[in-house]
């Protein structure tokens, strides 16, 4: 299971985030992206020593500053179930169709790209051409 799938599934769930500097943020996840940048709402912030507290309506945390996230245990089963359902749905939807689709798709991917990329910027035409 990918860490980011877990995080995505954690939307609207409570979580604890600790930053690399030791500050912690307790709140509900509003949104996240692939960099693990996150926004939390109704946040309790503590300083590194854990002796001072702040309450924030909402906050944004840059993903690169995060040390770890603690999420509800129940999320694990929720994500696993979701993945199973997605897999089964995928199996059902595919079938005879798929080979046809692939056939059409394949040449475009493997072939030379459009827009004449390879020609431009290739070898020059020699001096003065």
């Amino acid at each position, binding site marked *: 299971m990918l860490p980011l799938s877990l995080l995505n599934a954690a939307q609207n769930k409570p979580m604890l985030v600790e930053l690399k500097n030791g500050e912690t943020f307790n709140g509900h996840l509003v949104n996240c992206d692939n960099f693990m940048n996150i926004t939390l709402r109704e946040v309790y912030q503590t300083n590194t020593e854990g002796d001072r507290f702040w309450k924030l309506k909402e906050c944004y945390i840059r993903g690169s500053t995060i*040390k770890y996230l603690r999420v509800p245990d129940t999320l694990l089963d929720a994500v696993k179930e979701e993945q199973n359902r997605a897999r089964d749905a995928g199996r059902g939807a595919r079938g005879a169709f798929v080979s046809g689709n692939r056939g059409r798709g394949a040449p475009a991917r493997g072939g030379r790209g459009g827009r004449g990329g390879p020609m431009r910027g290739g070898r020059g035409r020699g001096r003065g051409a």
Partner: protein
Amino acid sequence: MSSLQGYVDRRVILILQDGRVIVGVMVGFDQKSNVVLSESKERVYSMDEGVEEIPLGLYLVKGDMIVLIGELDDAVDQAVDLGTIHAEPIPPIRY
């Protein structure tokens, strides 16, 4: 290419840059070595008391912070009475 795939669904021990030691079952990872641990516990070492295990639950640790990941030999680990272990805690990395 080195991979964490072999550790998935195994009990592992994680050592972080801040010196923390976390054990848990690895349920997932990604290209940046971000790791998901379930049933995770922190092991706090000290010279005065035995090892204290603090339950943490489901944890997502950023790859940036991870120093080491090792597979735990469950049989050996179970055989150890953590309460009798006295050890210096690992100091954090200082820059």
